[in-house]
């Protein structure tokens, strides 16, 4: 009986290709939309998380000023000293390393290529705190730091702009008013949500202070990069550092902090939650499109209900039972929904693979959303395809035949 119903249903689909096509189209677009949006949304979440974790190992950044992001808030606020960094790493338990950082924006020139680059003066532990790896050459050493050697390590963006694809190691470039030898090239980290991390030149703090800035404020540093040991509670650590810094900066209990601590782990969690929210939002939008597809199917079914009701009347009159007729319609609805659903899954796979490359997020095939989208589409198709048929099959054959 099932095979019979299947044969009849397939024959009916073949006879009404336009109707079948429109039915399949609704499901097809709905399924493809929901899978693509959810998969790409999850890829984006993963990409953001990966880039944040690229920023550094349990990284805390200490900056002057009341809040992060606002430059004016730091005006007139004292900077830190190298001593602050030393004392933090010595006095607070659970800290792996702390590096003083002085940043400057200076013109860099190699042959006829010139550009403005962000220069970071720091100590060798900075590389480990910020998870930088070498592609070529070496990092600068403690000895370079002590002697204030004019050496630097450059990011991939700087390399591309100044050297093209040439190997920069061993070459001297001009930074500001001093010549500086490139001793290392960093492995690219890529575009993060927070700008191009590879647009950087890193050199010994002493060299930056003595050779490039050389003013009375040269011993100030404008941030301290701190990495916590694995498994250390970040919140407790922030509390301890805050207390220490308040003491060192002579803040009275009624004064607000004139520095702030930027915790990448927290940011990672916040950003992760935000992208997850976006994914859910996109999924909701895609769900609506699936529903609209379903309503489209319902419309097609309702438009053809007169013809189909007469058809049901004919089938009943020549001796089909109501059950056989319903089975036929059920098989028809299931077949169309499945064809649409599978085609949608295929399209979504292609779209995800292509778009993931274009917007540079990882593409992970998500079985769960594929199954959910497919089952939902099948349910919609069956519901809308089957319900009008069920009503018709309940009629007396003669009433179905006379349906206008």
């Amino acid at each position, binding site marked *: 009986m099932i095979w019979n119903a299947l044969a009849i249903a397939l024959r009916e689909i073949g006879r009404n290709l336009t109707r079948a096509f429109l039915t399949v189209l609704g499901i097809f677009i709905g399924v493809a939309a929901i899978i693509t949006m959810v998969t790409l949304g999850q890829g984006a979440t993963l990409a953001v998380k990966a880039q944040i974790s690229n920023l550094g190992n349990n990284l805390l950044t200490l900056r002057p000023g009341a809040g992060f992001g606002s430059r004016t808030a730091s005006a007139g606020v004292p900077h830190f000293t190298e001593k602050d960094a030393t004392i933090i790493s010595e006095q607070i338990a659970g800290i792996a390393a702390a590096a003083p950082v002085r940043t400057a924006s200076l013109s860099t020139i190699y042959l006829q290529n010139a550009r403005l680059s962000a220069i970071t003066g720091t100590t060798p532990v900075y590389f480990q705190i910020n998870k930088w790896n070498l592609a070529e050459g070496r990092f600068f050493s403690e000895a370079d730091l002590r002697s204030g050697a004019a050496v630097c390590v450059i990011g991939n963006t700087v390399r591309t702009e100044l050297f093209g694809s040439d190997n920069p190691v061993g070459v001297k470039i001009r930074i500001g008013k001093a010549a500086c030898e490139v001793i290392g090239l960093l492995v690219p980290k890529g575009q993060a949500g927070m700008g191009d991390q590879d647009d950087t030149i890193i050199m010994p703090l002493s060299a930056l202070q003595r050779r490039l800035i050389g003013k009375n404020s040269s011993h100030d540093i404008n941030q301290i990069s701190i990495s916590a040991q694995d498994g250390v509670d970040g919140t407790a650590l922030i509390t301890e550092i805050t207390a220490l810094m308040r003491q060192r900066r002579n803040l009275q209990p009624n004064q607000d902090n004139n520095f702030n601590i930027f915790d990448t782990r927290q940011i990672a969690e916040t950003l992760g939650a935000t992208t997850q929210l976006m994914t859910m939002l996109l999924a909701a939008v895609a769900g609506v499109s699936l529903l609209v597809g379903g309503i489209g199917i319902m419309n097609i079914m309702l438009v053809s209900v007169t013809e189909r009701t007469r058809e049901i009347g004919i*089938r009943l009159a020549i*001796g*089909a039972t*109501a059950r056989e007729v319903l089975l036929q319609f059920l098989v028809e609805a299931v077949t169309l929904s499945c064809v649409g659903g599978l085609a949608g899954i295929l399209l979504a796979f292609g779209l995800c693979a292509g778009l993931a490359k274009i917007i540079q997020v990882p593409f992970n095939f998500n079985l769960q959303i594929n199954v959910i989208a497919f089952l939902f589409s099948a349910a919609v198709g069956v519901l809308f395809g089957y319900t009008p048929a069920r009503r018709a099959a309940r009629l*007396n*054959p003669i009433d179905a035949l006379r349906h206008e």
Partner: protein
Amino acid sequence: MNPPAASPLIELRGLTKTYGVGDAAFQALKGIDLTIQAGEFVAIMGPSGSGKSTLMNVLGCLDTPTAGSYHYQGIAVETLNTNERSLLRRYALGFVFQGFNLLARTSSLDNVELPLLYRGVSRKDRHAQAVAALTSVGLPTKLRSTPAELSGGQQQRVAIARAIVTEPSTLFADEPTGNLDSVTTGDVMELLTRLNLDRGITVLVVTHDDHVATFARRTVLIKDGLIESDVARS
């Protein structure tokens, strides 16, 4: 389903059919007693609204009576459920309608095969029987034509082929020539007569056309839901 030898093919006692309820109720059949033997060719006549089509729908198990008894080959039809009535139609009854009621966009062959499909006949036998039925109604060359490609008379002959392909014991025809011109009317009625004489199929024709009724050997006249006359022709 073997009938007791003494049972007539169709036996109605006090059959009524009411549409609607309360004040809006309309009694289409007001108590019909009728007996039809196997092999008869009966014309049911009457003016519009007399209840003749209602009577035929009830006889053909397409509609259910409100009260009274209906025995088909000794089976009490009014006690059957929907499913059992479907099976009775499948195995014993054939229908021809005024509007042909063929499946659209479907070839003559597929239309005629349809009742066999529900009987579970194998593909090969289905094809052979459908071709034979279409040949017997004079359409051996129109196997692949869809209803839209056929004339009214040809469509009605396809419908007749569909009705007789299962070799039913009774063929019900509701105004079978209502949409046809006089020449094709003659063709269709001669075809029904031949089926009645050659194959012994009982034929019931509902019509308001006196010419059509002349092909039948018995004429039942219905008026206002009651039998007014019942005349057999010698």
